[in-house]
């Protein structure tokens, strides 16, 4: 006997979570299935709406200005500007003061771990004091063994972008010598736990020792940036203590995987889904689907080799694009593996990519085509299944990496797909 739900969401990234939250807010009984927890841990934790147009114009000051001008197949054009705003409002409401940027339509320019800056619509509160448009002098601090972020290189790079603030850098030894190749989460946990250690004959805590190492470099700066490792479970406490000890603003620079900002975001969104009464199940892949008279009736979870059916009235596919394996390819063709939905693509594999590393890559836009209801369609534009919708990167027609539109599209299409699915049950 299958477990039964009103709405079943497949995929646990921002798109899946936005879908489930959108459906739950409409009163639907919703369940989210996710193979792994890693999606958001790969993301920066920034919530982009649109930084550059599909033609590459930008950075855009106001991303909403550009939405009306998009080609008809762009997911934003499908759902419309109001869905983008409503979806964002839902997420803003959930994230509260832990995220910033809702006070304006304008994009912020955020320094990230490579020393570059990128436009984004929403950013964690811990990132806020580091914005590139702010003219206060900043110190970047790196840790000796964290090779993904080098403070001196990043500061010099930022300086070369022409930002209005003076930049300086310091690299310090983390007070507890962790293994040379420890993951950044290890640093975060040490800052969370804040154990005592003996330093030059005194007993100090880890946070205290970090502050003492950084303090001599802080003299003429008004803000201090660390790579985003300042705690996983107690980030506010860590940052508050460093702020007090250094007597200056402390901020984090978004990092690549594993991304603590992404993990914190994930934790908040799942918490919100839990509070909204949604169910979720993480750790097993959805491997199969069953249809009944052209309608999706259930999907099957593979739990340690056992196939467990999940039935629902409405389904939403939020399994990601080629990066998340929501879209797969072999040497011959590109496919949506779970429901076998049509994926438009050139037949010649050598037309899937551009010669230049940052060129215009068709593979970045691979996904299912959707109708105005966000239902995947076949080659003729007819909905594949009346009760299946899609959200996020599994939808074709946009390059989120080039546009910096990944989270925005996921939130807008997820919110809309969840809302529509809920109203049909």
């Amino acid at each position: 006997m299958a477990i039964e739900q009103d709405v079943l969401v497949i995929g646990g990234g921002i798109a899946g979570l936005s879908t489930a939250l959108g459906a739950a807010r409409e009163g639907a009984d919703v369940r989210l299935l996710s193979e792994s927890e890693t999606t958001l841990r790969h993301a920066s934790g920034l919530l982009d709406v649109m930084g550059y147009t599909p033609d590459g114009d930008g950075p855009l000051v106001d991303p909403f200005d550009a939405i009306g001008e998009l080609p008809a197949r762009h997911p934003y054009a499908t759902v419309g500007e109001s869905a983008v705003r409503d979806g964002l409002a839902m997420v803003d409401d959930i994230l509260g003061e832990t995220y910033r940027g809702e006070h304006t339509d304008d994009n912020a320019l955020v320094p990230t771990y490579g020393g570059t800056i990128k436009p984004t619509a929403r950013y964690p509160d811990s990132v806020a004091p580091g914005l590139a448009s702010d003219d206060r002098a900043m110190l970047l601090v790196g840790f000796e063994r964290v090779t993904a972020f080098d403070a001196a290189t990043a500061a010099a790079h930022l300086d070369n972008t022409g930002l209005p603030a003076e930049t300086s850098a310091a690299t310090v030894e983390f007070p507890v010598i962790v293994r040379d190749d420890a993951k950044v989460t290890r640093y975060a946990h040490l800052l969370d736990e804040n154990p005592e250690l003996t330093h030059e004959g005194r007993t100090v805590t880890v946070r205290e020792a970090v502050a003492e190492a950084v303090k001599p470099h802080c003299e003429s700066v008004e803000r201090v940036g660390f790579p985003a490792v300042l705690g996983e479970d107690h980030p506010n406490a860590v940052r508050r203590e460093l702020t007090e000890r250094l007597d200056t603003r402390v901020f984090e620079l978004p990092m690549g995987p594993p991304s603590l900002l992404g993990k914190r975001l994930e934790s908040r969104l799942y918490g919100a889904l839990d509070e909204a009464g949604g169910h979720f199940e993480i750790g097993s892949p959805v491997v199969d689907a069953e249809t009944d008279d052209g309608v999706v009736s259930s999907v099957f979870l593979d739990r340690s080799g056992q196939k467990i059916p999940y039935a629902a009235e409405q389904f939403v596919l939020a399994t990601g694009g080629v990066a998340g394996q929501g879209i797969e390819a072999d040497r011959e063709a590109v496919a949506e593996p779970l429901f076998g939905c049509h994926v438009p693509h050139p037949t010649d594999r050598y037309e899937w990519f551009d010669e230049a590393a940052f060129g215009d890559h068709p593979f970045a836009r691979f996904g299912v085509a959707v109708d105005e209801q966000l239902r995947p369609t076949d080659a003729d534009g007819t909905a594949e299944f009346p009760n299946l919708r899609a959200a996020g990167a599994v939808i074709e027609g946009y390059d989120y990496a080039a546009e910096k539109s990944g989270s925005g599209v996921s939130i807008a299409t997820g919110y809309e797909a969840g809302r529509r699915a809920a109203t049909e049950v």
Partner: protein
Amino acid sequence: MTSTPHVVVVGGGSTGVGIARDAAMRGFDVTLLEKGNLTHGTTGRMHGLLHSGGRYAVSDQESARECIEENMILRDIATHCVEDTGGLFVKRPEDTEEYYREKLEGLRECSIPATELTAAEARAQEPYLAKDIEKAIEVPDAAIDPFRLCVANAKSAQNHGARIETFSEVTDLLVEDGEVVGVEVTHESGTGKHVHGVEGTVEEIRADHVVNAAGAWTGELAAMADLDVEVRPSKGVMTIMNVRQVDTVINRCKPKGDADIVVPHETTAILGTTDEEVSDPAQYPEEQWEVDLMIEELGKLVPILEEARTIRSFWGVRPLYEPPDTGTDDPTDITRQFFLLDHDERDGRPGLTTIVGGKLTTYRLMAEQLVDHLAEKCGVDTACRTAQEPLPGSEDAGAIEAAMNEFGLRSPVGKRSAERLGSRTEEVLDTDDPNPVVCGCEAVTRAEIRDAIDESGSNLNAVRIRTRASMGNCQGGFCAHRLANELYDEYDERQARTALDELYQERWKGQRHALWGEQLGQAMITYAMHATTMNRDHDPASEDQALDFGAFDTGPGVPGDADDAGPGEVATDGGGDHCGD
């Protein structure tokens, strides 16, 4: 000749660096010029097979005999570059018994050790071999790292006083009274960017003798002295798998044909190859059918390859040569022997000798014969010692073990470092500074990266070939920027960024031939990380237009406001206590 004779060697592939080393060891004053990085041409684009000679035991026995002799020598002098994998010639049902017999006979005639294995014995050694293979012949093929080999030769040449110039293209040969008397060199790179020279500067280097070891570009160089050397470049594809499906070199036991070899190489396996004559060694099509052919054909030997993950493909060009009027139509029929062309004897143009053809396995022998020739011309009577004297890194076969003990290198990271560095392990790893892993896929540490930067300057592709950093599954996605970080501040930020862009683009170039399956997902993750998170496709620091920072969001509060997120802010803690229901 009264002073030390000065030789200019053109070409920084295995042949050129081998000649530079040999000549320097015999007391010549040597300058080596390479237009790109060391191994820039054919050497850096081969499958890493140290031939036993088995490949040529039927068709080209002279080459086969040279191969087995050199194979044994390189195992001694280049221990840290060679992995003794052994090799198999595998017979499928459709391959003829007649050729199998010829192969066995030829191996014996060329004194190449050969053992016949039954199908069961072969599969016991390599479990992924196809179920229907009939039998196999075991030969002493091995895997060799061409980068490490060239770098070690160049370093040895330097140690013997040679000047090694990379990114320095010979743009003309100086001819006076019908004699080649030197070269004109254009240095490509700026100070600090690569190794030597000032960008765009032109230098004239006079020499007693010029050696043309330019590989596929031999003809172009000869033409600068109005000489005709017709090299017939032939391209071949190599496809790299993300793991080693086999630990032994697997050859198909048939006369000739495309896609007939799998070479285990470090953490990967390399599939090869095609053999197609091309008109221009620098510009030729890299085609989809070639990649598909590798997987389909070699899948007949090792079926798991059909489902496995490829991480990139690359092409190399063989500088094949045959004496004029031989008239071979098919490039696979052209001999793999090498030729030494004394242009004084051949064309009445003294001062220049060309060496062309051959293969990596015989590079040392080619160098020996070439330098013998120079020595005779210049009246130098020092004997060749390259067959006896180990290369830097290979001086002490026990050094790896000793260093592992000394540094407590029991972890896979340390083991792999020591294998790459050989007897240089202690010198490189003996640092008091933290030594974190910079490239996770290939387990390359900071000390190795910094050593490579010391040796090769800011060019990260040169660092890559010395260390293998960025050559694993992620193809630099996770480590390219970490490598660039190590360049600063010896080099300025702009130089570090340029080096990052060059490496990233180079890694993309091969990876785009592997865009299906898991590697397509990997490519998108890499692209998303570098474009989405780091905005490297629109990096304001690299764009011409100045950004209007003031037009963007300056934060939730006006700077300086009391309610701004500043010192003393009261914030509630975020909880991370949610889990699945």
